[in-house]
C-alpha cells in the first residue's frame, strides 16, 4: 500500500517556503533530499537534552549521547539487513567511505598489475579514488561498458572480471540513468574469481529496499543526506572479517586501545575507523531518517516513485524529449535525465526555476558517462517521497514555457 505524496510533503518544513513566489517543486532529490520535521526535531532534541562526547565520559549525559549514537548505528545496520552493528562504520558520507576502503583495504590488497573494475556509469566518487590508487601503485582500473539503454554489458562480465581482479566497485543505482544494477549477479562473478565487491548505495538506499546479505556485498556504503537525513553522515558496511584485518584509516582519539610514545594498538571494529569526535548529532539524525523511511515502508516508497517516474516519462515522451536510461520501470529508479532539442539543459534549469521548479542541469558528477552518452549535459528530474503528480505537471508546464523562449 503506497502513500499520498501530498500528505508526506506536510512533514517537510521547506515546502512552507516558496520559490520565486511560486509553489516549491523540488525535483533534485538525487543530489540531496529535503528533511522532515521528525529528523530535524530529533537533531534538536539531541543537542538540547543529550549532548556530550561519546565513548568517553563516565557520567550519565555522556552515556545518553553514546546510547543515541549507537542506537543510530543499530538502525542503519537494520536498514540494510546487516547482522551486526560491528560491521557499520560511521563516515561523513559515501565519498569518505569509498576513500576509507581505498586507503585501508585496497592499499594492502591491491598491488601493481592488479585490476579494479568499476563501470561506465559511476559517479566521480566511485571513480576518482580508484584512479588515484592506480596512479599511486600501478594497479589497473577498468570500466565495464554499458549498452545504449544505459544497462551494464553483463555479457562482458567474464572478460572484465579476471584472475587479476581484486575489487569490483559499482553503484546499485545510477544517479544519471536511474539504472538499477543486478549487483548480486556481479557479486557472484567477482567472488568466483576471488575478488571483493563494493556497492555504492548512495542513490539506492533512499529509494529501494535491499539486503547486504542478498547482494552478497563485501562492502556497501550510503549517505544520510539523500535519504531525509542531515549532511555529514553516512555509513560503510564491511564484512567483519575484512574490517578486522584492515589497517586503520585516520589516526587520532577513539580509534586506539593503548598508546605509547612510538606506537599504539587499535580499538575494536568499528571504532578502529572512527578517529576523533564523530558527527554525533548527524549520525543520530541519520538514525531518525532511517526510522522515518521505515515508517513509510521502503516498498511503498518504491511504488510511489515508480508511479511518478512512469508519469514523468510519459509526459516527457509526449513532448518529444530524449530520455536516457532503461525504459522498463522495474529496471530503473526515480531519476529521469532528459534533453530537449531546442533548449540547452542550463537554459532549461534557469527558466523552470522561475516557475518554482528545481531540476539539475549538467554532468551530474559523471563526466565519463556523459561522454559515453555523447552529450555535454542533461537535465535531470528526480523524485522522492514528497513529490506528487502535480509536481510532474508543474515540470512539464515549465518545460513547455522554456520552449517558447527559443522557438
Amino acid at each position, binding site marked *: 500500500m503506497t502513500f499520498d505524496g501530498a500528505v508526506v510533503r506536510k512533514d517537510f518544513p521547506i515546502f512552507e517556503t516558496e520559490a520565486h513566489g511560486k509553489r516549491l517543486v523540488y525535483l533534485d532529490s538525487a543530489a540531496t533530499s529535503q528533511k522532515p520535521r521528525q529528523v530535524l526535531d530529533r537533531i534538536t532534541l539531541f543537542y538540547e537534552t543529550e549532548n556530550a562526547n561519546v565513548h568517553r565520559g563516565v557520567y550519565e549525559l555522556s552515556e545518553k549521547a553514546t546510547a543515541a549514537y549507537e542506537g543510530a548505528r543499530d538502525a542503519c545496520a537494520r536498514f540494510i539487513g546487516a547482522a551486526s552493528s560491528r560491521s557499520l562504520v560511521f563516515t561523513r558520507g559515501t565519498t569518505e567511505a569509498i576513500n576509507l576502503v581505498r586507503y585501508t583495504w585496497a592499499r594492502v590488497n591491491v598491488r601493481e598489475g592488479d585490476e579494479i573494475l568499476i563501470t561506465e556509469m559511476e559517479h566521480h566518487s566511485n571513480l576518482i579514488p580508484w584512479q588515484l590508487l592506480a596512479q599511486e601503485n600501478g594497479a589497473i582500473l577498468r570500466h565495464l561498458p554499458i549498452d545504449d539503454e544505459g544497462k551494464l554489458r553483463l555479457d562482458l562480465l567474464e572478460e572484465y572480471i579476471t584472475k587479476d581482479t581484486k575489487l569490483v566497485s559499482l553503484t546499485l543505482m545510477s544517479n544519471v540513468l536511474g539504472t538499477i544494477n543486478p549487483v548480486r549477479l556481479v557479486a557472484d562473478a567477482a567472488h568466483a574469481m576471488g575478488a571483493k565487491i563494493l556497492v555504492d548505495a548512495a542513490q539506492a538506499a533512499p529509494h529501494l529496499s535491499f539486503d547486504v546479505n542478498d547482494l552478497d556485498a563485501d562492502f556497501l556504503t550510503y549517505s544520510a543526506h539523500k535519504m531525509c537525513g542531515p549532511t555529514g553522515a553516512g555509513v560503510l558496511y564491511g564484512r567483519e572479517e575484512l574490517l578486522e584485518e584492515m589497517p586503520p584509516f585516520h589516526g587520532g582519539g577513539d580509534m586506539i586501545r593503548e598508546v605509547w610514545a612510538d606506537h599504539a594498538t587499535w580499538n575494536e571494529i568499528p571504532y578502529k575507523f572512527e578517529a576523533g569526535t564523530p558527527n554525533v548529532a548527524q549520525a543520530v539524525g541519520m538514525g531518525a531518517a532511517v526510522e522515518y523511511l521505515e515508517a513509510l515502508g521502503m516498498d511503498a516508497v518504491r511504488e510511489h516513485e515508480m508511479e511518478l517516474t512512469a508519469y514523468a516519462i510519459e509526459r516527457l515522451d509526449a513532448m518529444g524529449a530524449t530520455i536516457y536510461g532503461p525504459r522498463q520501470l522495474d529496471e530503473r529508479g526515480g531519476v529521469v535525465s532528459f534533453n530537449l532539442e531546442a533548449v540547452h539543459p*542550463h537554459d532549461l534549469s534557469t527558466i523552470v526555476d*522561475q516557475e518554482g521548479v528545481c531540476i539539475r542541469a*549538467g*554532468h551530474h558528477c559523471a563526466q565519463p558517462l*556523459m561522454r559515453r552518452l555523447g552529450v*555535454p549535459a542533461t537535465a535531470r528530474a528526480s523524485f522522492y517521497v514528497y513529490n506528487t503528480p502535480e509536481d510532474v505537471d508543474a515540470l512539464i508546464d515549465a518545460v513547455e514555457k522554456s520552449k517558447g523562449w*527559443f522557438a
Partner: protein
Amino acid sequence: MSLEDLYKEVILDHYRAPRNKGRLDPHDVLLERNNPLCGDEIELFLKFEDGQLQGISFDGKGCSISLASTSMMTEKVQGLSIEQARELTESIKRMMAGEEDGDPNALGDLVSLKGVVKYPVRIKCALLGWNTLLEGLAEGATNPS
C-alpha cells in the same frame, strides 16, 4: 528579476544564428576549452596580422548564454589590436563582476549581457568565450605571425 533581463532579444538572435561559427583556415591559434560545471565546449580560432586580430571564429556546444556571448564577441573583436581586444575583454569581465565601467555605450550590443549578472551561476557561461580569447591573445602576442 525576470527572464527578460537574461534572455534579451539580441542574445536570442545570436543564439539562433551565431556569427563566425565554424573553422577558420588558416589560423594561428586554436584553443579548446570547456566549462566543466555544465559541459559547455568551445573551440576558438584566431588569425593575427601585424599585432591585430585579423580573423576569429568559434565552434562548440553550449547554452544560449555561452553561445550568444561568444558570437557577439567574435563580431566585436575582429580587427582590433591585441591590446584593444584585451581591454574590451577586461571590461566585459568587470561588468560580469558587477562593477560599473565608464561609458556603457562603448560596449554596444554587449551591454545586453549585463542581465547575466543577476544569475550568478550563468556568469561562467557568459565568460567562457572571453576567457578563452584572453588566452589566445596572450599566445598571439608572444608568437606574432
